[in-house]
């Protein structure tokens, strides 16, 4: 069989893969894009960012309506039509998926549906529904992403034990749900199910949830979760799970004691693992690190000069926008342009209630690395806009290099923090100083003012906080 010839083959069509394929095609390369799913978009579109945000938005309305009662507007009890909610969510995914297919076609990117397997450093075998196809490539970009980790002890083959993928399918609203793992996925999906009416319990093996995020940013989320969830058990491990009729019997270890509880469903959200298996990487020179992620350099080139890797599979922050940025860097490097991931600022957002968002240096990281910083904080209780939204559960803070007053990082918790962090990214990436932010006029009354006021607070001149002497 004649092999398909490609200048660049991209394996995996998530937010890393399709961006790489499109950008390479825009640069005039002949590109083949391979994905095992019919709908392009990867985890982000099919079982991650997009469906979870659709559900968080839709269910957030329930909480908004509840809170509204205290402001004199009541709607009565919400009526949930699960089929309709699911259909609406799926329609969003379809729309975006069709959009991607159309965009591939318009660029002349050839899409192959099937599993890709490297035969060597220049040939990829693709197992399609019409049999094997072969792609002879000059360069390959691996963008196969990651999948929810499922420890073998929890893998009962029982659909009542879910990962995020199944939880987003929204098969039913379980009467009670155990969320194993208090990371951002557990927090987000726990919020969705709790709002839909499930009694949610969360267990976390470590001493806090949302580990790694500055504690002052996590606090408002915890205050919400403590109310919305039935309970949050820290320092607690799941020892065993077993099917017990229509329930899952879970054995928990806490303080050296073991307790048994039963839940209608369990969501396992204990991290994500790279999809490196069955790719034929052993037939190439690609090397993996001790956690199984592909090792890459600043250009995202692997140890095999013909092969690049981007996104989750290359490790680092497992975020869609990080994958998309790496896609551009890898394509530019292949095109012989100067490009590097060094110095790129990657923001992160947790879509809890309220949202948490940050970029650049965090306080936790500064402490770990021994970097001397000054931190300016602006609590939202002092923001007029936050009060009118009845959402004063927020905080904006700037992490500042003392000698130069340069912004090294921005952290925000509060309603719409995910949207606000964009300004923070621009400021940090541009090398802005606190003075730059303080002197840029922000519209009133908006939450974006909190950034400006925070910078002013650094100089002790915020009109809405108590005067502070700059040390």
């Amino acid at each position, binding site marked *: 069989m004649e092999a398909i010839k490609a200048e660049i083959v991209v394996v995996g069509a998530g937010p890393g893969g399709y961006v790489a394929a499109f950008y390479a095609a825009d640069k005039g390369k002949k590109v083949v894009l391979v994905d095992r799913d019919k709908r392009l978009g990867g985890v982000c579109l099919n079982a991650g960012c997009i469906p979870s945000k659709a559900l968080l938005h839709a269910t957030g309305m329930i909480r908004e309506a509840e809170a509204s009662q205290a402001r004199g507007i009541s709607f009565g009890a919400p009526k949930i039509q699960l089929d309709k909610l699911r259909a609406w969510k799926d329609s969003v995914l379809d729309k975006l998926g069709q959009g991607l297919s159309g965009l591939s076609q318009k660029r002349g990117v050839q899409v192959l549906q099937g599993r890709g397997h490297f035969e060597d450093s220049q040939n990829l075998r693709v197992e399609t529904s019409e049999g094997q196809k072969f792609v002879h490539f000059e360069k390959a970009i691996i963008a196969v992403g990651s999948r929810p980790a499922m420890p073998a002890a929890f893998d009962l083959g029982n659909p009542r034990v879910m990962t995020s993928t199944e939880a987003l399918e929204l098969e039913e609203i379980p009467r009670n749900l155990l969320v194993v793992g208090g990371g951002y996925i557990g927090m987000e999906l726990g919020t969705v199910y709790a709002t839909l009416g499930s009694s949610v319990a969360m267990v976390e093996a470590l001493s806090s949830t949302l580990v790694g995020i500055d504690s002052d940013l996590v606090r408002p989320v915890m205050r919400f979760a403590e109310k919305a969830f039935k309970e949050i058990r820290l320092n607690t491990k799941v020892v065993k799970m077993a099917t017990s009729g229509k329930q899952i019997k879970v054995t928990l270890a806490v303080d050296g004691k073991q307790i048994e509880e039963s839940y209608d469903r369990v969501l396992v959200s204990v991290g994500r693992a790279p999809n490196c298996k069955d790719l034929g990487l052993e037939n190439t020179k690609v090397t993996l690190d001790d956690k199984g992620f592909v090792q890459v350099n600043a250009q995202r080139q692997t140890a095999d000069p013909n092969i690049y890797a981007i996104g989750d599979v290359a490790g680092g922050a497992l975020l869609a926008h990080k994958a998309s940025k790496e896609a551009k860097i890898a394509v530019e490097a292949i095109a012989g342009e100067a490009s590097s991931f060094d*110095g790129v600022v990657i923001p992160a957002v947790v879509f809890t209630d309220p949202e948490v968002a940050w970029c650049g240096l965090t306080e936790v990281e500064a402490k770990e690395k021994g970097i001397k910083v000054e931190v300016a904080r602006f609590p939202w209780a002092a923001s007029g806009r936050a009060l009118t939204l009845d959402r004063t559960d927020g905080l904006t803070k700037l992490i500042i290099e003392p000698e130069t*007053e*340069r912004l090294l990082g921005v952290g925000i918790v509060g309603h719409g923090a995910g949207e606000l962090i964009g300004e923070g990214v621009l400021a940090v990436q541009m090398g802005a100083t606190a003075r*730059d932010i303080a002197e840029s006029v922000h519209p009133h009354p908006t939450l974006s003012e909190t950034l400006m006021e925070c910078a002013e607070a650094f100089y002790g001149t915020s009109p809405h906080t108590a005067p502070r002497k700059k040390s």
Partner: protein
Amino acid sequence: MDIRVPRLAEGVESATVANILVAEGATIERDQVVLELETEKAVGPIPSPGAGKVAKIHVKSGDQVQVGQVLISVTVEGAADQAKKEEPARASVKSSAIAAAQAAAPVRENAAAPGADAHRYESRSGFPPPAAPSVRKIAQELGIDLTRVKGSERGGRIALQDLKAYIAALQEAAAAPAPSRETPPPAAKGVDFSKWGPVEKKRMSALRRTVAQRMVESWTTIPHITQMDEADITNLLALMKKYGPRFEKKGTHLTFTPLAMKAAAAALKKYPIFNSSFDEATGEIIYKRYYHLGVAVDTDAGLIVPVVRDVDQKTIFSLSLELNTLVERTRQRKVSLEELQGGTFSISNQGGIGGGHFTPIVNKPEVAVLGLGRAALKPLVKDKKTETRMMLPLALSYDHRVIDGANAVRFVRELIQALENFSENELKEWRG
């Protein structure tokens, strides 16, 4: 679309147009090689970044060109309107910076550039210097290290203006008279040799000119001494005979040079001064902790010295494999500039052609070079008995500014010991 002289290699400022492979009006494909540039010791093909028609060729064969200079203008067919729309906005910033960077950008940044070189960004937080992503990108493209650029904006942020000022300062430094380099000694001019018989005139190739320039520089700045001796390689030749066929089976020739390289690397480790460089500007001796050996290769165009890296860490087998392809690529003039740089010591093996002792010239900025002649059977008196042994002529030239004669004798003795007692085990390692 303009095809410009790309950034060639670290420290390479200019090149000579060797061949122009297209004519004005010709239609060219993307990636088609349109001309060849000769730089230092290699010929590099310049491909077209896009398809189109050659509108104008700005250079001719033999021209000296600088990095960033426009070589050929190409009209992009069909995309002309789009190009017009896009170009001014994007190009104005970039091309003015590139124009300013002509010749300047790739100047060795550690060369004395007053004003430009004084600055060094240091962040207590360990963050890169503050600059907009657009400025960062331009710096990347021009190969400029932003930590050397002084930012004029708040918090030391580097603006495009700062980058331009830095490039201008580099340019000034580059334009300042470089002593000894640009002033060749007055040549015997005007003699009409045809008065006495028929003659043929041939232009010196860029490579030949480079070789000439380097030889003059080395010969006039380095006080050369050559230490000569002989090594008994009878046993080593027997080992080669034994292992030659095994190397053939594994797909490569076993020649003498890799063995000499291995012996030299061992001697260099013992006497690190021979693996050093002398910085005339600072008066420092720089000891290198790596052993990259240059190997003189005789090509049709002249002498080229490609470099084999980390000789001490490689097996004879992998050195043989590497050297054989490197020599072949050098003869075909396909080696990259990077492969010609970074040597710490050189070997010139004339044994293949013949020859006895000779006085090799040190390959500056290295401080020593080993010349090997052809081994021959000679009578050797040992324990008052005369034997015939295969004796290899060795000649070590060195820079007497940093190395003394006694050290040279020690080094050569060490080398002879290494060759005479060569460990057979080294020939048994197939790790490649």
